[in-house]
């Protein structure tokens, strides 16, 4: 623990292990920082294209922030900047936006307070609009989750079970969060109404089909 | 194992953002027969109590007629109650008591023998002998 205050310039040859993980050995970064589909972890055109096209000029974000949006905590054991904080911001603003959205629709309900029908809060549709399943499906239909830096325990078991749905939803939350951080709440709300509600199929369509399917079962 | 969190509630700082008056209810107890309640009865009859109550709009005034000496009971938001005996006091003195106790927080009065009472760390820090420069260090 105790050492003299002399600066040491250390040049070491470290063995970088290739292949399946062996406990205690440092793995070769060339092998680790690659997705299942073969995409390398870098700020390249191919990686960021889908995100950048989805966010047009108006809602653009930096390249390194865009790469952070695509990176999940499971990628490389969290050594690269990942999207947990961004998705925390995005999920909160989405929940608030959709609560306001459903409450402000014109209503004939006599129990509406100042024109806002609060009876719709707590129903399945209101809860699932900003939910993981609809956002995961939205990401898949818009091809936004084609390049995501994450690691599954088993890639082959399906969209939901492998964890891809949750990671895609987190990526969508992180996207909204990144727009909030860079441009502010007002612009982020415009982004949600333009790009999520204005898409086809919109997040509303996806959610209503999800809820209908669940009600039939 | 990475860092874990210890659950703690945040500390209220009444007045920094918004100020909520700690006294939320005053029970006014008077007697119709006894002479000790005459000051209070005069307050109630003249309408002065009414104007005080409309002034202190955040406080509920509960006027009760009960046999015995008159008293004021102040209810605070830390669940404490303060009973104040107002027997044989003049109307003006009762108004003084009302104003004094309605401005309290409900905590008992205490004497503080130090200089500063605060939630925050000292601004200039606390002197440390280990961080004094070599020329100023204490020589045994």
């Amino acid at each position, binding site marked *: *623990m105790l050492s003299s*205050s002399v600066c040491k310039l*250390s040049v070491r040859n470290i063995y970088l292990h290739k292949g399946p993980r062996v406990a205690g050995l440092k793995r070769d970064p060339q092998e680790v920082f690659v997705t299942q589909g073969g995409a390398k972890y870098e700020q390249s055109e191919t990686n960021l294209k889908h995100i950048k096209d989805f966010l047009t000029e108006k809602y653009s974000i930096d390249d390194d922030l865009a790469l952070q949006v695509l990176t999940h905590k499971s990628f490389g054991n*969290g*050594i690269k900047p*990942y999207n*947990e*904080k*961004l998705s*925390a911001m995005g999920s909160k*603003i989405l*929940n608030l936006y959709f609560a306001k959205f459903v*409450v402000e629709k014109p209503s004939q309900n*006599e*129990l509406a*307070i*100042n024109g806002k*029908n*609060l*009876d*719709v*809060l707590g*129903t*399945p*549709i209101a*809860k*699932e609009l900003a939910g993981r*399943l609809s956002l995961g499906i939205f990401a898949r239909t818009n091809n936004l989750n084609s390049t995501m830096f994450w690691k599954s*325990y088993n890639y082959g078991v399906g969209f*939901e*079970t492998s964890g891809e749905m949750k990671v895609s939803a987190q990526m969508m939350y992180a996207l909204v969060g990144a727009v909030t*951080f860079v441009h*502010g*709440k007002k612009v982020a709300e415009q982004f949600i109404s333009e790009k999520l509600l204005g898409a086809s199929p919109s997040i509303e369509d996806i959610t*209503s089909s999800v*809820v209908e399917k*669940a009600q039939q079962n | *194992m*990475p*860092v*874990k969190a*210890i659950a*703690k509630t*945040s*500390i*209220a*700082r*009444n007045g920094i*953002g*918004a100020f*909520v008056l700690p006294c*939320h*209810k005053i029970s006014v107890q008077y007697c119709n027969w006894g002479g000790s309640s005459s000051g209070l009865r005069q307050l109630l009859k003249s309408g002065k109590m009414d104007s005080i109550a409309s002034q202190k*709009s*955040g406080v*509920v005034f509960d006027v009760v007629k009960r046999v015995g000496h008159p008293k004021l009971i102040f209810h605070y*938001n830390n*669940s404490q109650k303060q009973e104040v005996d107002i027997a044989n006091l003049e109307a003006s003195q009762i108004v003084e008591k009302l104003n004094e106790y309605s401005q309290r927080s409900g905590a008992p009065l205490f004497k503080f023998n130090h200089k500063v009472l605060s*939630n925050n760390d000292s601004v200039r820090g606390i002197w*440390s002998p280990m961080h004094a420069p070599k020329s100023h260090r204490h020589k045994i």
Partner: protein
Amino acid sequence: MLRRIVRLPRPMLRTLVPTRNYQVARLDTSLKTNYDSLTDYGSYKNNIFTHRLPESTAQQSPPLVALHSRLNLPTSYSLSTLSQALNLNKFDDGLANNFGLNTLGKNLMSYYVAEYLLIKYPRLPMPIHNAAVDSLMGVETLHEIGKSWGIEVDQSSKLEKYLSQESEFLKYGKLRFVSEQRKSQVKEDGVYELSQEEIASLHRNKSFVAKETEAYASAVRSIVGGLYTHVGEDATKAFISDHILSRKLPLEQMFQFSQPTRELIRLCDKLSFTEPVEIRLIAETGRLSAHPIYVAGAFCGVEKLGEGIGSSLAEAKTRSVVNALLSYYLYSPISADGADVKFPSDIDYKFEGIVGTGDVAI
């Protein structure tokens, strides 16, 4: 639900991994909701509620009017809504309860508290961030806030009210959540009898939250929700920052490290520091002095990351590493001209802070 994994190597073929399918939210049938179509949000109606308190009745309740004035609520915030915020009963003669207001208030508070923490403390580890959110707007804290606002619980039964000749308007200014049956139960001093729901929640969760605590928290959230419905989001933001964000967060006391040295080294790896982490002794009173004091520093090359004082070498070392980690995690940005950073919900927002890159795993 257990799923068999197919593509693992031979020895693991027979392993079963527990997985949980995503459960889509279900409708609460006790509310008897009906609607025209799923996306026709204005048509939703809970049929067990038939009316709201008329404004004239609400104005006759002294505790309600006093609460309205004490919180400095604007005049457009109707007393009828404030009374609804204090009503948790579902089956109370068809009088509307505070569930919708509660949900709306919860969403508003969640957003503004999260925004505050993410901008002011961008590098907080996620478990600490969650604990900080609980510290500012968790159930216990909201209970304290509700009590500090002077909200009283309506505990007297109908019989007690009749015998004491209590005005019938008083209850509209008090917190109503106790059922009539529980109110007329004989209460033994020092004994708190759990209701069926509380016993069920005790079995489900590891910690017990009393119904009164939940009720106070719900009332506070509903008051915030009511403010949004009557006055709008700006006034609600001001209210939340006045009552909730003005509270002091004891963040330094909320960290519990188990292997701080490993964590610091991993953090320096993540931040791509080239120099190795070393802990050096800066000063000491002497090994044989009575009650010795050691000052240790965590260094990365020539730069000191943190310093700690201890009565043993090990203690000084641990404190220095912990202080280094705290100095990183508790970083709070300021703008270029030394002012506070703005929040995304501010009018003239400019992104001057940083985005947290995530915690380290050790």
